């Protein structure tokens, strides 16, 4: 085959694939109500193919057939599209910045409501609980940790992590300005680490879908780190509307290390509390 034929064939198969992905996501929405249609296309394409390869399916059309007819496979698919591997105190300097710049603001409220949106298996919510405990604020806080995915929420609620992760978590904890020993926060049992109930007591894990559900409270701090990166521009803007409407004036929103409110309509409604760690304070 000549180089030009190869290019033509590749462009054609790219176009077919684009159609297949659109149809698949439309079909999933109509069959199951999960709306991935406005997810950022580059990463969702990768995840779809990773799943197809794992299940030895050759085309996305063939995958569509399986997903529409087999709800059990669909459950696995949702997991593979939404689960993000994370760690306790991922980005340790973020938690240091929370201690230095957010905790003093939160201390001015008699009762503090926090929303951890897209909490996945709970690492971030528990990390925050540790920080708030050490800052003497946790008794007055409630963390609402939400995710669209029931399976990860069950995992999050359990608060049990592989013991093999504890070295990484401990290193992160130290770099995050931890005040005691990280082992104070868990009990080792067989090859698992069970987090202390004292961390769990003020966290409410609940199902919430940022794409299809509405605001459910008003918060003083919202964490939405490395979640909006998976949405396209339009959906990101829509979710930012939802978050903005759920944040008190002068409340704080925390984005991932490489996200910003630039290129959104909220650029001017917030001031930067910490430029590097992407902490923004609502001013309007």
């Amino acid at each position, binding site marked *: 085959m000549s*180089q030009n034929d*190869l*290019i033509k064939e*590749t*462009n054609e198969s*790219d176009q077919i694939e684009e159609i297949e992905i659109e149809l698949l996501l439309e079909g999933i929405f109509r069959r199951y109500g999960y709306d991935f249609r406005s997810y*950022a*296309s*580059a*990463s969702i394409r*990768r*995840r779809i193919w990773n799943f197809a390869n794992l299940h030895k399916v050759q085309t996305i059309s063939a995958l569509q057939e399986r997903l529409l007819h087999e709800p059990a496979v669909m459950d696995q698919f949702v997991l593979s599209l939404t689960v*993000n*591997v*994370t760690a306790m105190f991922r980005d*340790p*300097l973020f938690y240091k910045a929370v201690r230095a710049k957010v905790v003093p603001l939160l201390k001015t409220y008699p009762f503090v409501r926090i929303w951890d949106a897209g909490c996945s298996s709970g690492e971030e919510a528990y990390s925050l609980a540790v920080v708030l405990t050490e800052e003497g604020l946790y008794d007055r806080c409630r963390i609402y940790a939400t995710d669209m995915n029931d399976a990860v929420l069950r995992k999050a609620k359990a608060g049990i992590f592989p013991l093999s992760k504890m070295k990484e978590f401990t290193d992160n904890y130290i*770099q995050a300005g931890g005040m005691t020993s990280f082992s104070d926060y868990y009990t080792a049992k067989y090859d698992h680490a069970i987090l202390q109930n004292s961390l769990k007591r003020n966290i409410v894990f609940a199902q919430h879908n940022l794409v299809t559900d509405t605001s459910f409270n008003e918060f003083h701090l919202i964490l939405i780190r*490395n979640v*909006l*990166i*998976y949405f*396209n*521009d339009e959906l*990101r803007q829509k979710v930012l509307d939802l978050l903005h409407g759920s944040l008190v004036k002068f409340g704080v929103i925390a984005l*991932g*290390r*490489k*996200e*910003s409110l*630039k*290129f*959104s309509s909220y650029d001017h409604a917030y001031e930067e509390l910490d430029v*590097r760690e992407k902490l923004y304070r609502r001013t309007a």
Partner: protein
Amino acid sequence: MPYNLIMIGCSLGGLKALPILLSGISRGSVTPIVIVQHRDRDINTAGLLTQMLQKSSGMVLEEAEDKTPIAPSHVYLAPSDYHLLIEQDHFQLSTELPVAFARPSIDVAFESAARCYGSSLIGIILTGTGSDGAKGLAHIERRGGLAVVQEPSTAEQGSMPLAAIAATSAAKVLPLDEIATFLNSLADHGEYKNAFRAAR
């Protein structure tokens, strides 16, 4: 043929090779450049790499952030601990699992760029161990983009360039110090058009 984006992938040895390449690019060039350099999570060295590379380039050097539009006269560096994807005219980041131990993965970045930019993309593989970037460069070639590889014997680590040459059929293989001259010589290289409009 006007090129709208240049993607560069490198691993071990890249920190020495990149300044040589960047400093050779003519001052008039406005074609944006995206660098995917394998790197560790940089908790305490954040910004150092950007600062170092800025010294060798007349363009604006910055780390790519999610949803940042790809602008002319900019050199973007893939941030540590994320995959960098190209989505139409802007960047998309992802925290999916590392691919072949790499995050950022050159293959992931190159493939996504190839799909958006087609024949208006140049992909360059420089020094490095392993074979990351080879599949990505093949994706670029299959969509009519231009594949360039550092001559393995001039690379601090020849393994990545060798893999890239093996995976492609017509890659332009050049010693490191001739790559910038080659880029400068491409006729319309300096002609920047709106990236996505020109893509298809």
